[in-house]
């Protein structure tokens, strides 16, 4: 019995949608899980009641609403609420798809760099264009920290500009690497249980208790990471948008 921790990241085309240039556009398992995430969010937000005293589903919908709204207000101020739909969409999309992805035999959308990079670039360009549109040339103040002595200012500015343009890289790789590494580790440890059992017989099954315990602990950790990375991605989005709203800090 062979363990293949990478198999879970395979993209399987389910049917072909069409062609753009020489690229085949297929509806893949990844697409399926994207739409599952959208559907689950829509169900949560639209099928929940509108009662004065909320039930469970309605509570979850309202808690996620308040959670994202509070996050935005505390990091980007009340002007950041302009981007509430965007940040809410990003957070819920990642959170729900990550949580779905922790279920065995499912696919995790954000374990593909292209997806996280696309979202990070969406945030990056939103910050860039909104910052320039709202503040004009004053937007470039974010590269000039106040209170820095003039003789090291060029160096600081160089670092600031570099870090600004590296933001989408760190933003996307953090989420992607966390999801990828977590899922590989889970699969490897879970694989040990089966490997021990099938190769060593009864003794192997007994010995498999240890990796099984590790798998359970890792699974709990992965549940946390699934939520946490979605939250980190959303809060970084808020912080970057705060630069666009209030440059010159």
């Amino acid at each position, binding site marked *: 019995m062979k363990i293949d921790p990478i198999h879970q990241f395979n993209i399987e085309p389910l049917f072909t949608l069409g062609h753009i240039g020489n690229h085949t556009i297929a*509806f893949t398992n990844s*697409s399926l899980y*994207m739409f599952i995430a959208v559907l689950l*969010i829509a169900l949560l*937000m639209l099928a*929940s009641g509108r009662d004065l005293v909320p039930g469970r589903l309605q509570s979850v919908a309202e808690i996620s609403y308040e959670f994202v709204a509070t996050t935005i207000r505390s990091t980007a101020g009340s002007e950041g609420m302009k981007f509430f739909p965007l940040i809410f*969409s990003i957070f819920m999309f990642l959170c729900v798809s990550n949580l779905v992805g922790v279920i065995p035999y499912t696919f995790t959308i954000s374990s593909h*760099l*292209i997806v996280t990079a696309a979202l990070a670039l969406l945030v990056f360009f939103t910050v860039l264009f909104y910052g320039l549109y709202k503040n004009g040339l004053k937007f470039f103040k974010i590269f000039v920290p106040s209170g820095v002595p003039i003789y090291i200012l060029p160096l600081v500015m160089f670092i600031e500009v570099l870090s600004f343009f590296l933001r989408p890289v760190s933003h996307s790789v953090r989420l992607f690497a966390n999801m990828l590494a977590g899922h590989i580790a889970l699969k490897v440890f879970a694989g040990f249980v089966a490997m021990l059992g099938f190769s060593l017989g009864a003794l192997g099954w007994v010995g498999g208790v240890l990796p099984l315990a590790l798998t359970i602990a890792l699974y709990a950790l992965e549940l946390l990471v699934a939520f946490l990375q979605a939250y980190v991605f959303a809060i970084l989005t808020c912080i970057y948008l705060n630069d666009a709203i209030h440059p010159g800090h």
Partner: protein
Amino acid sequence: MAESHGEAKGQNAGAHTEAEGGHHGGAFPPFDSSNYASQLVSLAIAFVALYLIVSRIALPRVGGTIDARQNKIEGDLAEAQKLKDESDAALKAYETELANARANAQAIGNETREKLNAASEAERKALEEKLAAKLADAEKQIATTRTNAMSNVRGIAADAAGAIVQQLAGVTPDANAVNSAVDASLKG
């Protein structure tokens, strides 16, 4: 760093998938550029759909529910405060009324007491005056009677003295001398 790490793994994994008869050209799936276009297209469609659902329907709906609840709570609190204020005002009015009534009752009581006191005082005075007048009358009568009696006593004493002198001396004394002697003895 994470990327290079991933790539290294990817090559290993590629070997695995190929060995298993993989139908994916052998690359580590997250870095297999042949499926980028498909993923980007479905991500764009899914995310735009999600954004529209969230911004047009979901957030206004949930936000509306939360606002409605907030308004309801604030309205109820304001209503409760209003009722409390009203009851406080009523209590205050009641207490003022009670204090007024008490003051009134006291005033009426004092007035009545004074009136009754004055009346009884007047009655007492009238009675006393009447009694004093009666007393004076009685004293005057007593004095008159006493004077009369005293004058009678003088007459009797004079007669008696005249008679005694006649019996003892056998002469009828001069009436004036007897009278002056009686007077002197009465005085003395």
